[in-house]
């Protein structure tokens, strides 16, 4: 049983179609670890207009989007863990920097990529993430260290979430 489905994810992450790159959360150990999945399809915008003679290599899912997807899984872990304590981040989660990232494989349309992200630590509005991305059990990316930062809203550390939750509930559903 997944822990979070897409509607739950969309309540935590600010990202939306077509750049919401996490579909499902399999496991979530607050403040420690998340296992999240993203299904890749040939209908993704990144394959739009691809040459009809393009070979298999041309259909490798872009590395940049794998990094973004991994980062979103990490942001989910960070945000969801904070919210379980009734807190919110002092801004929107943004990719900051990555170090020691190794690509050892690729993902293709039809694959489900699985990110295992560990929260190595947080310092104020910065989170340190580490982990791997797998396809059918094979590691295709190793992330030595990724920094995610919370920016964009005025610095109001540890805002109480209840006001925000109430505001969200008032929004009409699409």
């Amino acid at each position: 049983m997944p822990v979070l489905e897409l509607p739950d994810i969309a309540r935590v992450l600010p990202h939306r179609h077509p750049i919401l790159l996490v579909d499902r959360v399999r496991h979530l150990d607050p403040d420690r670890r998340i296992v999240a999945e993203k299904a890749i399809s040939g209908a993704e915008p990144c394959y739009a207009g691809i040459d009809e003679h393009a070979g298999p290599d041309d259909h490798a899912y872009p590395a940049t989007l794998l990094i973004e997807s991994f980062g979103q899984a990490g942001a989910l872990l960070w945000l969801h863990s904070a919210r379980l304590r009734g807190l919110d981040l002092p801004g929107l989660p943004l990719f900051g920097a990555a170090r020691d990232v190794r690509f050892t494989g690729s993902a293709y349309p039809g694959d489900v990529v699985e990110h295992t992200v560990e929260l190595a630590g947080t310092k104020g509005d910065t989170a340190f993430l580490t982990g791997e991305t797998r396809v059918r059990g094979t590691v295709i990316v190793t992330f030595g260290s990724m920094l995610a930062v919370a920016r964009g809203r005025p610095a109001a550390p540890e805002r109480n979430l209840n006001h925000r939750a109430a505001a969200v509930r008032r929004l009409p559903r699409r």
Partner: protein
Amino acid sequence: MTQITATLDELREIAADVLEVEPEEVSDDGLFAEEHDTDSLRAIELLARVEKRYKVDIPQQELPNMVSLRALHDVVAKYAVRG
């Protein structure tokens, strides 16, 4: 309780790793921002590495004071002795 053992050379190694330069390129008093174009992300990474290495808790408010290797050493010393 915690004994401060952070030497300038140890910190130089850590800083060089974060700044992606050779240790010899990190001088004692050169400003990180001027000599290595250090931004806030690198600074917080440096802070986190130092905290982990010396098991100290340094508040984020100290970031603006960590302008050089020697200044970083002073900040670490300040919090290490409080441990």
